[in-house]
């Protein structure tokens, strides 16, 4: 059977599964819609959150980045798990005790101000729309390549499917669909790596096999370093980026993960505070299965690419090469006119590959059976759709609940609120389609912007809301504003308005600027609080005390 036919079959089967689950567990009330009725078990919740968190950036960009950048890209791998630790011990259990639907709910109540609530809605929409744009690009890449439709149609088809089950299911449907998606994406991620591992190392245990010796008795990593040097690239295990930038990017990814609204709200769906703690631990355990296998994929891919893409006559290049060439993702320019492909470091390199396609291309490069290629496509789509659905829910709840119901029409019926939520999802998806077709950059650059904003707004505001009960609304609002404006201006200037890399402040790139934004947020809050802030009202201080211990937890609700 052809790869394309197999892909269509695999993708259709998985989508059918999602559709059936979404239909069976569709939302009937706002509680179902926003927090799945509050009755999801910690393990099911952990699987759903893992699928929600692992996006196309995890599945496609990170292995590709590590393959291309080597050691420097380790921060993209270790950042998110570090962030889960912060989320698990500093944020999730307390917000579960607080017991409302959304982050703007917490910010608005804790800082007893609708200005703070609205500002939080703005931040949430900003973060999730940026993140969504990255997902939609990924959906476009996968569909256009495997279904042989144009990139535009790829994005539109993907958006249609997300709309179907996000709108229908709400959080309840999404949670159970994401459990299925976790299984599919985990399976689709590990199987090809195990295959490659057996092929390259003759050892199926992917977590350690890449540290072993190859058939010729040399450690694989030493061999890869030697191969890289031979073809004019820097050694794979060597560091290129300045240490300060590595530090700031790693820390930004950690703080950003801990402040990601679509992840935080997942822990509102478990019954108790102790369940929230347990659920975060399970989530990270499940995510780490994929994360710990990622470097193996990157190392195998890099080795195979260097070995098999060099010194082949262009005329006899394999079929998959020609297929990718039709897209913009791979291009060959015969600079020295010898008709032979040279994939080398420096200006003489003749082969350009978009690193976002590494994982999609490697099964073809390595000649794996074609059902594996189909499986990778289904897995990448599971990753993109589960994340997109979680993000859409944040956008819709922020606007329908925090903006319209809490502030403009408090007497609105549940039914009406649900309708407005669904309209918001549709509008957000139109943005997603637009940016999916005209992406502002690589998936990871787009996603990094979202992490920086989360690190400089939500993370500090929530942290101070829990641990410093004397912080008043004036300080918190000023801090979030300063963090948001600073980070957005720095990134927009450097990434989109032509700022040069040598103009980075203290060598800190756009991806690491979230830490500076957070420090500015803390400083501003502290100063404003000291000189202009009033003491928070007594009932707010009592509320902060209540969320600090688990006893007396109620169901999450919006009333």
């Amino acid at each position: 059977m052809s790869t394309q036919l197999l892909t269509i079959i695999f993708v259709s089967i998985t989508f059918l599964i999602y559709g059936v689950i979404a239909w069976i567990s569709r939302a009937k009330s706002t509680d179902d819609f926003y927090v799945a009725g509050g009755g999801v078990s910690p393990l099911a919740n952990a699987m759903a959150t893992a699928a929600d968190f692992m996006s196309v950036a995890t599945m496609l960009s990170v292995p590709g980045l590590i393959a291309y950048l080597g050691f420097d890209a380790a921060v993209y791998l270790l950042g998110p798990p570090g962030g889960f630790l912060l989320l698990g011990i500093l944020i999730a259990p307390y917000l579960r005790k607080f017991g409302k639907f959304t982050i703007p709910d917490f910010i608005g109540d804790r800082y007893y101000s609708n200005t703070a609530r609205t500002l939080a809605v703005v931040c949430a929409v900003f973060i999730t729309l940026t993140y969504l744009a990255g997902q939609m690009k990924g959906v476009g890449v996968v569909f256009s390549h495997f279904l042989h439709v144009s990139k535009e149609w790829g994005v539109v088809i993907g958006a249609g499917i997300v709309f179907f089950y996000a709108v229908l299911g709400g959080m309840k449907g999404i949670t159970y669909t994401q459990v299925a998606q976790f299984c599919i994406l985990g399976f689709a991620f590990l199987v090809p790596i195990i295959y490659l591992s057996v092929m390259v190392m003759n050892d199926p245990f992917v977590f350690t096999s890449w540290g072993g010796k190859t058939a010729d008795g040399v450690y694989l990593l030493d061999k890869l370093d030697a191969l890289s040097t031979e073809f004019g690239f820097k050694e794979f295990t060597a560091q290129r980026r300045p240490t300060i930038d590595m530090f700031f990017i790693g820390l930004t990814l950690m703080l950003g993960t801990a402040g990601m609204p679509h992840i935080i709200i997942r822990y509102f769906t478990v019954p108790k505070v102790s369940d929230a703690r347990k659920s975060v631990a399970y989530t990270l355990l499940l995510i780490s299965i994929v994360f710990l296998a990622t470097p193996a994929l990157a190392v195998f891919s890099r080795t195979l690419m260097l070995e098999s893409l060099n010194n082949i006559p262009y005329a006899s290049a394999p079929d998959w090469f020609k297929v990718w060439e039709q897209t913009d993702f791979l291009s060959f320019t015969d600079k020295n006119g010898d008709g032979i492909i040279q994939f080398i470091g420096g200006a003489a390199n003749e082969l350009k590959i978009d690193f976002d396609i590494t994982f999609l291309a490697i099964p073809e490069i390595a000649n794996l059976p074609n059902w594996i290629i189909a499986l990778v496509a289904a897995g990448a789509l599971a990753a993109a759709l589960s994340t997109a659905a979680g993000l859409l829910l944040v956008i819709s709840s922020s606007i329908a609940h925090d903006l319209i119901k809490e502030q403009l029409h408090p007497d609105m019926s549940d039914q009406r609120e649900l309708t407005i939520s669904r309209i918001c999802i549709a509008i957000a998806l139109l943005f997603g389609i637009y940016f999916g077709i005209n992406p502002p950059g690589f998936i990871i650059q787009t996603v990094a912007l979202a992490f920086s904003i989360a690190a400089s707004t939500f993370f500090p505001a929530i942290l101070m809301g829990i641990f410093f009960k004397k912080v008043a609304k004036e300080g918190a609002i000023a801090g979030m504003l300063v963090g948001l404006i600073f980070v957005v201006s720095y990134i927009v200037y450097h990434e989109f308005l032509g700022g040069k890399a040598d103009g980075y402040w203290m060598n800190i790139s756009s991806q690491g600027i979230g830490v500076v934004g957070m420090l500015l947020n803390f400083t501003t809050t502290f100063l404003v609080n000291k000189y202009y802030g009033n003491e928070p009202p007594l009932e707010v201080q009592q509320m902060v005390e209540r969320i600090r211990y688990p006893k007396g937890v109620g169901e999450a609700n919006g009333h």
Partner: protein
Amino acid sequence: MNDNLEAYWKANLRILIVLLAIWFIVGLVFPILLVDQLNNFQIGGFKLGFWFAFQGSIIVFVILLFVYAHLMNRLDNKYGVND
């Protein structure tokens, strides 16, 4: 806040500070700040600092979250604030 809850919160903060210190050392010091020094040691085909950056720190984070859940449950029971 009564004395019991005050004591509970202090004990909670102590656990947090210890875990955050380990988080910082394992997540940022080993794989980034001290990576060159650790790379002088080798386990199998991995240089130690390199291994921490790609796998070691992640494993420690997972363990820390389970330790946290366990310690907090014990603390909740001890102070009678369990849910």
